[in-house]
């Protein structure tokens, strides 16, 4: 055995366990984050599945043979179906029938279905027939698109019962009440993934980095005592604060712009692969934000970064050195992680009121909500978010300026409960 090893190990452990800066982020936080996330994901999967089971499958029967009935009877055994006769897909949409039947997808049995079936079964094996599947593009969370691929499975099962490969499927997507023939919803899921993953992740990383930078810059001034020197110089104290915040504002502004450029590039390259018929553009279809949408998103990102920076500046004035400032802003991270990750999987509108309110109250949620809302053209919610976060920031800044105008800037300290520690090191 190494001499002295256990003594050193025990001492190290004791120190680590007693340091709240290590204990909280390393041990307590994961204990909270993972259960919360698993709850969120469980909820997301459940609600997607529930939605599917609850909803009726609409069947548009435009065929008047004998096989269409066999097919309908077959489906009837497995799920709730509603049959509408002699109606085109566009009519279903125009008459708002999907909403009436609480459904997000439907199948069309096209005219000639039975006839082709019969010919195939009578030996003309090159003749096939098809079922047309239509799904509504929703743009919710990652799992909200489970539906339509499920229907292909049922058709294949029907084939197995009758004859292999007799019924083929075609996939079409309804985007903004327009039927896009031949656009498989799964090609759109790449787009959805980009929307629901990329932006929240970027926002998360940007906020955390900028908070670290701001906290470090203030704490460095405290640690090196350059702040004291400034505070005793003939300079306006509010100018010191504003100078600090403004420099980070500039950084935040640049960060917001560059990340938006990156985001719009990504959206462009992802949507390039989607075969949308001719002259319709992606903005009208509600697949990508408009220029105005991008601007709104940029502003939302900007004010949110600003609020994070202001918060970091205030928090770091409570610490004596860089290390403790960084640890202190670390306590904010759950507020950044949890909404970002939750909204990757969930549509905020599908959440219970209480959770929704909590999420709206956290400033860091708003760019993520905005990223979805600008695509849907729902600008009022984005504007609300911008105003809310701006007010939040002003309050924080007011508090910061109060701190800077008193001796608290030097003497304020968050006391961790570690017994009476009255003697300050001099």
């Amino acid at each position, binding site marked *: 055995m190494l001499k002295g090893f256990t003594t050193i190990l025990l001492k190290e452990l004791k120190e680590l366990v007693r340091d709240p800066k290590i204990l909280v982020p390393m041990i307590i936080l994961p204990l909270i984050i993972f259960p919360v996330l698993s709850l969120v994901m469980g909820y997301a999967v459940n609600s997607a599945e529930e939605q599917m089971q609850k909803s009726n499958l609409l069947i548009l029967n435009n065929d008047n043979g004998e096989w269409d009935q066999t097919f309908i009877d077959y489906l009837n055994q497995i799920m709730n179906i509603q049959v509408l006769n002699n109606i085109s897909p566009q009519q279903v949409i125009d008459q708002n029938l999907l909403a009436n039947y609480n459904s997000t997808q439907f199948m069309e049995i096209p005219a000639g279905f039975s006839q082709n079936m019969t010919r195939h079964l009578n030996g003309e094996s090159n003749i096939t027939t098809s079922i047309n599947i239509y799904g509504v593009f929703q743009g919710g969370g990652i799992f909200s698109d489970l539906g339509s691929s499920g229907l292909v499975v049922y058709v294949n099962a029907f084939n197995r019962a009758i004859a292999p490969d007799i019924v083929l499927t075609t996939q079409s997507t309804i985007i903004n009440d327009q039927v896009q023939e031949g656009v498989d919803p799964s090609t759109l899921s790449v787009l959805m993934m980009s929307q629901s993953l990329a932006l929240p992740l970027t926002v998360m990383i940007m906020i955390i980095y900028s908070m670290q930078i701001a906290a470090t810059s203030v704490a460095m001034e405290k*640690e090196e005592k350059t702040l*004291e*020197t400034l505070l005793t110089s003939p300079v306006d104290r509010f100018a010191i604060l504003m100078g600090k915040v403004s420099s980070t504002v500039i950084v935040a502004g640049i960060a917001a712009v560059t990340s938006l450029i990156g985001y719009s590039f990504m959206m462009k390259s992802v949507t390039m692969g989607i075969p949308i018929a001719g002259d319709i553009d992606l903005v009208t279809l509600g697949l990508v934000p408009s220029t105005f949408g991008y601007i709104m998103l940029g502003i939302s990102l900007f004010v949110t970064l600003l609020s994070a920076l202001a918060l970091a500046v205030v928090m770091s004035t409570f610490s004596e050195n860089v290390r403790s400032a960084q640890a202190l802003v670390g306590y904010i991270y759950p507020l950044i992680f949890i909404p970002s990750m939750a909204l990757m999987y969930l549509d905020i509108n599908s959440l219970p009121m209480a959770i929704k309110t909590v999420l709206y109250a956290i400033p860091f949620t708003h760019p993520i909500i905005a990223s979805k809302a600008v695509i849907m053209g729902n600008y009022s919610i984005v504007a609300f978010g911008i105003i809310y976060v701006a007010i939040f920031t002003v309050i924080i800044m007011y508090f910061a300026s109060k701190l800077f105008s008193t001796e608290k800037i*030097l003497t304020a300290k968050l006391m961790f409960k570690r017994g009476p520690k009255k003697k300050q090191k001099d």
Partner: protein
Amino acid sequence: MNLAVDARSLVKQFGSVRALDNLSFTVKPGEIYGLIGPNGAGKTTTLRTICTLILPSSGKLDVFGLDVVSQAAEVRKILSYLPEESGAYPNLTGYEYLEFMAKFNQKEGYDIKSMVNEAVELSGLGDRLRDKAKTYSKGMKRRLLIARALMTHPKLAVLDEPASGLDVLHAYRIREIIKQYVKKYNITVILSSHNMLEVEYLCNRVSLVNEGKIVIEGEPKELRAKYDSENLEEVFAKVVGYA
């Protein structure tokens, strides 16, 4: 009005700690005045109060007739402060730091350029001023900061442990700088130290601070004679009753 610092019955309470306990003293213009005492005696707290960084809980403190509480902005115009154990901005060069600080202190007939040139001279750092401050040794940093504190020709320079932590030669150099420069520009200095020998060498008058109170005050020579001691260390030990 003819006093540089006039402190009357200063009290500073930090929660349950009474850092200053009825502290009174005066500093005359042109003096180098030393506060000496052990760690935790209240020296830094006194100097911070003079510099308008913290407010006295009670008592009154004037700097050249200006009240540190109600005329804080005026006080800041005439003093400069060297915090204990302070540094510069790690990613700025020494030269940039001097320039930055000079911009706040421009005076008529004394522009930034001559201010910085004077500091360059004072610091004796030469070409190293072109390097980032994070590459400086402790002694170099201290020289840079002393130069910064004195280059503005303040009426009052407040220096908290100006030579602490430095080796004998560096400390000696810094004391020389202070002594000469102050005479040249008629700057009043109040400094703190727990190095009694240093204070004895530098100061016209000293006071011994202990537990927030001034125990004795006077010229070093006078105090040594009064307590029949070789040096101020011995005086201090006798006064607080260790000897």
